């Protein structure tokens, strides 16, 4: 490594300068919206209406967050969200990986038909009403299970997209590993569990991230299938509820007609939306750095592969 470097003395320097500049630019441009939202979330609502908030709050307040946490439901909903994210992700990742393994086996007789069946699911939606009937007929309405089996109102327990990502990854693994295990008499399930699954750690970390973020962010399933049971309410759903209530209190023609305006609010839709965004996204942001370790460990797999 060191010897190689010597041969290009000026070139790497130039490259690095250029590269760091680009990276810095990207970091600044992508950090800005988040910081701006953070600033707005700590700024007084009526003042935010004026606009012109960039990186720092102008009139500091915790009111927006107070409004988010005043309803006790948020805390319970947080744990429901954590539970569905954990359970949903574990099941989904395992089942997806298992399916991907079977579909990576060239000899598998149903490989093609099952692959097609899954790929097509990405390109159609049956519609809300039939889906609702499905959930209702299966007695899944207002159950926790609907979050796992039908996350976001889609057949997401096994996602075709994630399956393809894993399958593509498995294709890059050396076939010899599987073959030699077969010769040793191992069955497919055992090969999957003890050889392929560990080798897939980096890609599984990736799809775990996708699944977890999806599970965490969705509120649509609560909205349609579990809204009448308060103890199944998720964090996102509670937050969306707060947001629409704030939006409404400020823009309803009826309420303004009489008793309304004495209720001129300090909290505007803009400011509560910012606080909600922060509360909703910060918990899930910690997931990625945690999973990131697996990404790096993928690099060491090279030696295993040989």
């Amino acid at each position, binding site marked *: 490594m060191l010897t190689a470097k010597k041969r290009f003395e000026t070139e790497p320097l130039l490259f690095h300068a250029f590269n760091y500049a680009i990276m810095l630019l990207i970091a600044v441009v992508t950090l800005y919206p988040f910081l701006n939202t953070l600033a707005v979330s700590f700024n007084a609502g*009526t*003042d935010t*209406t*004026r*606009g*012109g908030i960039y990186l720092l709050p102008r009139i500091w307040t915790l*009111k927006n967050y*107070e*409004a988010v946490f*005043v*309803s006790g*439901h948020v805390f319970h909903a947080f744990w429901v969200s954590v539970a569905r994210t954990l359970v949903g992700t574990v*099941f989904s990742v*395992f089942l997806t990986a298992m399916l991907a393994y079977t579909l990576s086996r060239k000899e598998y007789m149903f490989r093609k038909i099952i692959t097609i069946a899954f790929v097509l699911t990405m390109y159609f939606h049956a519609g*809300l*009403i039939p889906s*609702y*009937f499905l959930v*209702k*007929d299966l*007695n899944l*309405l*207002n*159950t926790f*299970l609907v979050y796992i*089996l039908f996350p976001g109102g889609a057949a997401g327990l096994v996602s075709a997209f994630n399956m393809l990502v894993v399958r593509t990854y498995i294709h890059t693994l050396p076939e010899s590993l599987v073959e030699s295990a077969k010769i040793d008499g191992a069955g497919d*399930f*055992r090969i999957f*569990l*003890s050889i392929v699954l560990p080798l897939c750690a980096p890609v599984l970390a990736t799809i775990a991230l996708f699944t977890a973020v999806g599970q965490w962010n969705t509120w*649509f399933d609560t*909205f*349609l299938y579990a*809204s*009448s*049971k308060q103890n199944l309410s998720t964090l996102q759903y509670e937050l969306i509820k707060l*947001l*629409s*209530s704030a939006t*409404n*209190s400020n*823009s*309803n*023609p*009826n*309420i*303004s*007609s*009489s*008793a*309304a*305006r*004495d*209720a*001129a*609010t*300090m*909290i*505007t839709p*803009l400011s509560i939306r910012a606080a909600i965004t922060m509360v909703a996204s910060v918990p899930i942001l910690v997931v990625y750095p945690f999973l990131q370790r697996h990404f790096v460990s993928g690099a060491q797999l090279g030696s295993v592969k040989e």
Partner: protein
Amino acid sequence: MGVRARKAAYGLLMLVFAFSIIASGCSKKENAEGSGSPSASPQANSSSPSESGSASAGPEPFEISIFMQDPGPIPTENNRIYKKIKDELGVTLKEEYLVGDAEQKLGVMIAGGDYPDLITANTKLVAAKAVIPLEDLIEKNAPNLKKHYEKVWNQMKDPNDGHIYWMPNYGVYQGEFKTTQHYGPAFFIQKAVLKEFGYPKFKTLDEYFKLIEDYKAKYPEIDGQPTIGFTTLAYDWRDWPLRNAPEHLSGHPNDGGVVVDPNTNVASLFEATDIAKPYYKKLNEINAKGLMDREAFAQNFDQYLAKIASGRVLGMFDQRWNFQQGEDSLISQGKPERAYVGIPLVYDPSIRDYYVDRPVLNLNNGFGITVNAKDPVKIIKFLDTLMDPKWQKLFSWGEEGVDYQVGANGLYSRTPEQRKQQEDVTWKQANKAEALFRFLPKLEGKYPDGNADGPGNQPDEFFANLKPIDQEVLGAYGYKLWTDFFSVPPENRISYPAWSIDLVEGSPAKVANQKMKDLAFKYLPKAILSKPGDFDKVWAEYGEQMGKVDTKAYLDRVNEILKWRQENWSK
């Protein structure tokens, strides 16, 4: 596919799914020799037994489930008002609020027939026979409601079958009533502009824009930023700032997309006609003078509010409630002189302005009782109890001694601390029931004891809240209330207002309505921003495109209902 067949088919597939997961779990065990537990099987186990989730209504004390299509501040679990209702009336309210899209939620609710006991109005629910007729129920069990709605009983009936399905939440007033502030449409102008020119009286567009022009010439910048003469808004469903001015300029009341001849009771379009043209031509002229906000048609609602809150927009046409947030911000910044006065402009001084109307019944609004309600009588009796002034005051004013005081003259008032408290959202969540009260039938105007229906309409409370500049403006014009700027409205036309007409879901009338809106959003900005010489050309093109729309379907539907109202509401 019948429900049964579908259920059977699902059941079968589910069974196969569950079975195969268990099978694979077993096969895993045998292959993996216990290493790595078969994580799939517990899930299969929990999916097969049916776990009915629908919470059944408790027998005693009485529970009422409610679905509301517009959430207000969501009450906390130990909210003061709800606690009182439970303690005194034994009623627990299980509320659900709409978030997300109403069409989607109602669509599946109707498809599945999963209604709560009480639901807020939507014409879809009537079409799907989800709500029960209320007229007998009210007549037999609810004397307070009966008395409250007596005058408007016929108006509440559904044009299609003559039944009453909804209890309107606004528009039934007790006694002679005058609002202190006009929250509806008007041309607005900054108080500072009026002050600058010595509080002139004016009626026409020319005079209005002259004031704006002169003020802008004198103060090209306000607080270091360029002054904006006139702005407007055409964003999403907020279309009236751009579209509705011509009907008022020509002396018509707010009938939405049409003007109605009061003599013949026939509606006609005003958009893209000669009723509308002079106004947009005027806007085109002021654009050429640099008074029009160039960005107006591309801005979103937040940007519109931000501009108003910056205090440099001199005027606009809008409804007051729509930009109230911007004005709140101005006042909190200590710039009350940048807040607005509503002026009823007309094309010609001979036209009597008709911006303020008499209260109208808020049709297709309020609560209805669904077919799923087990005991409609108990529910209507509960609602009837809430019509008692005692409960009404609890909702609007709060509790005596806590939220307001009773003066020696019997009139209610609030201390500054109590007023401040009312503005605190978190406090409201624990102490008010605004969302619920918004939809309940309510006493408006004056209570029997002479107090107004809420602090905002109590004259003393109103005067106590006026800023010095407000007193100056009102004093200069010799008015007491903001509504005094407007003509006293005549009795409403019987069929008024046309905007509350239900155009029928998915009908050609609705398609035409949407097309008209699309064309207005596209061509009006184009016409206003065009070079003065091109205006007529663009306007002609607009008219031509309007000609392609099936406006007849739209007008026919409107006229059909206007006629029906004329015949049935006059009784």
